[in-house]
């Protein structure tokens, strides 16, 4: 018996990384899974994004757990695509219980130098994409008078960071969006929360472009060279947490054990947050 037997979880950005980990965590606790992923490159993103092979692998891994899985290609920047994904999930899996608004990208540039395409891709994906996912599921959740939404923000949603102002702006925006939605839908028995990770061991930050962000003076920094710089953020001496640590927080917030937690930001941040409010 799992905590999520008979439930359906929807995940954006589920082809790999945190999204895949969420899919497997929820499936291992009994949920059927529907996820979408762009499964293509966005030109302003300086590392290889997920591909259709990744998407298919997540489907296979969920099915290996004897749960049903819908894996759809959809770009969260386009509400029509997100709505089509949600509609397909409802049709094929029969219901919508949880939304994990996880899809996100990472890119770099100072505010003085960012080009408008890099800015816009970031805001469209990491902030508007979360709105689109909420917009697509909330009418169903309101009608059924139940639902759990967890959006992925970041410690960059609580602090400022150089070289990623667009990412920071989007992640702060996610918190404002989630808190507002939490108020709007509380009377319908729906909770809306946010998880704020520190660095997570995924391809989004384990790539040469991200290492360069942490070690700007190194020519070709490696993971081993970058790890101490990543670790300097975290009082608990780890350079990054694992995707499962974020999945565990998502599962807690979707479980009955958290039925009265809403509008909250939960840092899974190895103590990076202890210096700061929230």
């Amino acid at each position, binding site marked *: 018996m799992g905590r999520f037997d008979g439930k359906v979880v929807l995940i954006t950005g589920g082809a790999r990384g945190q999204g895949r980990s969420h899919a497997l965590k929820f499936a291992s606790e009994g949920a059927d899974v529907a996820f979408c992923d762009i499964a293509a490159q966005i030109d302003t993103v300086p590392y290889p994004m997920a591909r259709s092979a990744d998407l298919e692998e997540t489907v296979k891994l969920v099915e290996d757990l004897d749960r049903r899985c819908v894996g759809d290609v959809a770009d969260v920047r386009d509400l029509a695509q997100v709505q089509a994904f949600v509609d397909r999930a409802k049709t094929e899996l029969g219901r919508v219980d949880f939304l994990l608004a996880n899809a996100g990208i990472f890119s770099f540039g100072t505010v003085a130098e960012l080009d408008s395409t890099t800015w816009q891709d970031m805001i469209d994906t990491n902030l508007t994409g979360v709105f689109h996912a909420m917009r697509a599921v909330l009418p169903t959740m309101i009608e059924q008078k139940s639902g759990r939404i967890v959006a992925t923000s970041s410690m960059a949603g609580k602090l400022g960071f150089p070289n990623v102002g667009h990412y920071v702006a989007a992640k702060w925006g996610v918190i404002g969006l989630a808190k507002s939605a939490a108020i709007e839908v*509380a009377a319908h028995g729906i909770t809306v929360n946010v998880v704020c990770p520190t660095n997570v061991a995924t391809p989004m930050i384990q790539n040469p472009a991200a290492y360069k962000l942490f070690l700007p003076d190194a020519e070709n920094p490696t993971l081993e060279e970058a790890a101490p710089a990543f670790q300097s953020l975290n009082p608990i001496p780890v350079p990054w947490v694992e995707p499962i640590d974020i999945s565990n927080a998502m599962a807690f917030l979707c479980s009955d054990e958290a*039925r009265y937690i809403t509008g909250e930001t939960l840092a899974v941040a190895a103590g990076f*947050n*202890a210096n700061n409010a929230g």
Partner: protein
Amino acid sequence: MAGRLEGKVALISGAARGQGRSHAVRLAQEGADIIAFDVCRQLPTVGYKMATPEDLKETAKQVEDLDRRIIAREADVRDAAAVKALVEEGVAELGRLDIVSANAGIATFAPNAWSIEEDAWEETLAVNLTGVWKTLKAAIPAMLDAGNGGSIIITSSTAGIKGMAGIAHYDSAKHGVVGLMRTLAIELAPHSIRVNTVHPTGVNTPMVVNDYMAQFLAEDVGGTNIMNLLPVELVEPVDISNAVLWLASDEARYVTGTCLPVDAGFLQK
């Protein structure tokens, strides 16, 4: 099925009834042995009936009925020597210390901050803030000695995040434990001991559900203090226990320095 806290030992203050008893039972359900204490007598400035030795015995019985071990003692969080002696006895008996729930607290009211009686201010700060520090001062060396890391969960309140008329002393103490938590989170991170606070809204316990509180809520000063966003008047003790359990469990191994409200959305209003 193995529990989420199998083989762990948890110290819980204010464990005779209410949230503390619920934490003891919930953590025991997941496999933990318990070191429980409570002052078990009336404090002079408190306007509702406090827990009794019989209440603490009932907590012990409920834990033992789950086939877990419990050391339950009458002790005052304001008495550092007593808490230290209890920790030593508990660790000698149960072998280790992994989890601390610093839960003991009192609540009293006044029309406003400037009319709080000095003895009420001092008693509230002594129990709700200094009592937490004394509990942790006793517990942390034992946790460090055991070398297993661990998790400390301090019970703050929604009043530890926002101001509320009529409870300046309570509000100050509950804000204070957040500062203590954040500092300890940094100091203990190298030892893999995590420190977090939980922030309940009104909970269905004898501290809240009593004539004294009813009178406070009936007066304008506190009437809006307990209105939640989710359609529920009071949350149940087990809702706080579930948050404590999650923070105590390995699922939260990288969660430290956080404030976790269990407030039915109260703070979002």
